[in-house]
């Protein structure tokens, strides 16, 4: 499966209500980096209620300059949240459906 099939597709909750669109897909490397990188596993998807466009890096907590751009992008992506892999029931080109009772996490990156 290719990532571009999923980016920008609709995200529905367990009852079929629309939550937003897939704005980004988060991966994590569990082992420390050696000469080559260790496998990258999917952590979850970032759901943005209004736009599937990129955050342009403003999802990092400490970035706030230039101020007008940061404000605009934060406002455009307000209400975004992270859903972990465990809560994804179906994903693909027809959209992503979450399990009922999924947990929404803060999507901001700390570093």
């Amino acid at each position, binding site marked *: *499966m290719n*990532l*571009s099939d999923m980016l920008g597709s609709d995200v529905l909750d367990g009852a079929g209500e*629309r939550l937003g669109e897939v704005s*980004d*897909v988060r991966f994590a490397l569990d082992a420390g980096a050696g000469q080559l990188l260790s496998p*990258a596993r999917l952590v979850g998807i970032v759901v943005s209620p209004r736009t599937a466009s990129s*955050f342009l890096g403003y999802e990092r907590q400490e970035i706030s300059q230039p101020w007008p751009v940061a404000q605009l992008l934060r406002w455009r992506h307000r209400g975004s949240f*992270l859903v972990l892999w465990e809560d994804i029931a179906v994903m693909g*080109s027809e959209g992503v459906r979450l399990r009922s009772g999924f947990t929404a996490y803060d999507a901001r990156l700390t570093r």
Partner: protein
Amino acid sequence: MSERKRVQPRQLHAAPSPAGLVLDAQLHLLDRQMLDVDGVPVTTVDDIELSGPEPNEEIPEGTAPPQITALLTGPVLGTRIFGGRPPSSRLIRIPWKVVAGVDTVVTLGVRADSMDASWVERWLRNHVIARIPGGSHEP
């Protein structure tokens, strides 16, 4: 307009922080330049191939998360402007296991000459540039 109706989760929890490097696909990987082990530009990341569940099929609970199997590159300019995407057969795979680092560029641990992604440059070097007088050696 009912299909545009949105519901919002009521409460956001603090996200678990994985011990290792965290990569957001759009932010850290897609459209990044790839450099080979000698710093020679190879190509850019146009798409990412994932292992794991079949698309659009129910994922059983407890399934292991998908992993990145390869970075994909190919002729995507036209499809970005006009929509759609090139067939998978037209995309060139760069396996994730040769990736050495992700920073402002994606660094590979192999030489560009060993990869399919740089065949156009190699062909032009051998068949066009090398035939220009003085083109077969460094200045």
